[in-house]
């Protein structure tokens, strides 16, 4: 338990404990936040990259996400996990981005979003043979195609479930939706993926 003040407190056992100063508490909070950034930054970046398919934009929004989190760190009560809280911030930033893009449809904004073929090129170097690699690449391209056709909310739920491997309750907490709605969105997203996989066979 953190306490702020300069007086000492004598515990029942008789050991004197020096209460924490404001500076020390801030130092600990900063260290704690730095650890959270280190742990969750790659995950937030991955989610944003998959959502936006734009490396620079994903990097920018990741930075904004942690900046916002740092500003509001004192208000984080720990009702949900830090990851869920950060994911919620990232989802809101992403929403704001799409909203601004829609509003500024007349503006010629330069986007660095890669096309689906380029995104599908990425595969981990496993021990698969060339044929399996080709099949995997084809499947990845089909899933990307399906993801492209999803609504913003469906895409978010789908990526949180199948890329970030979050539990339904966590997805519900991060998106602010009920679990039933999350399931419905997942079902529709999966249906779309299935159709895409069937359609190109």
């Amino acid at each position, binding site marked *: 338990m953190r306490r702020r003040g300069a007086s000492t407190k004598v515990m029942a056992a008789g050991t004197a404990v020096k209460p924490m100063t404001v500076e020390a508490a801030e130092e600990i909070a900063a260290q704690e936040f730095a650890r959270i950034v280190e742990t969750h930054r790659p995950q937030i970046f991955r989610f944003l990259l998959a959502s936006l398919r734009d490396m620079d934009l994903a990097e920018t929004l990741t930075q904004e996400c942690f900046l916002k989190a740092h500003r509001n760190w004192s208000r984080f009560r720990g009702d949900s996990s830090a990851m869920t809280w950060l994911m919620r911030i990232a989802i809101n930033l992403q929403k704001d981005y799409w909203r601004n893009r829609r509003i500024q449809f007349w503006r010629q904004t330069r986007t660095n979003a890669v096309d689906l073929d380029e995104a599908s090129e990425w595969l*981990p170097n496993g021990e698969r043979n060339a044929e399996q690699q080709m099949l995997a690449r084809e499947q990845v391209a089909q899933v990307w195609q399906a993801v492209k056709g999803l609504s913003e909310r469906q895409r978010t739920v789908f990526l949180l479930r199948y890329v970030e491997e979050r539990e339904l309750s966590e997805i519900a907490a991060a998106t602010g939706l009920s679990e039933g709605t999350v399931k419905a969105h997942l079902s529709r997203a999966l249906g779309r993926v299935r159709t895409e996989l069937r359609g190109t066979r």
Partner: protein
Amino acid sequence: MNWEQDLAGEKPELEQALRHFKASVDAWSDAAYHQPRTAAKSAVRHSWRMATGWALGCLLAVGSLAGAGHEIYHRQELAKIAAEKAAQKAAEERAAAARVSAQPASVQPEKKTPAATTRKASSTQDSAQSQDEDLLATVDNDVSRGVPAAMEPLAALMDDGGAQ
């Protein structure tokens, strides 16, 4: 459609595709995450350039519109002044025509020959001259009469002398 049933009924192909998709996104994200980036500065410069371009463009557009508006206003003003002048001239001409038509028929010249015009001009000049002389004489008379009281007898003598 029930989601639980949906997942239970998933075919291995779908599961495999989703697994590959996750692996692909992971690989891409790892590569992108560890890649050094120097985009921030250029992005700022780009936005500044764009903002400057927009500002100049807006300025040019506003200037053009203002210039065009001023030109139109100026032309309208000139046209208004010209119309007023034309109307004034027409009114003067109408008034002159009315004056001419109001004169008696005997006074009106039957034919406007150059000789008649010259004669008319000389007679008009003569009459104007005689009117001027009459006016001056009256003024002299008035002025000479307006003498101080002390000079009144002298003025009377001069009048008498003039009468004689």
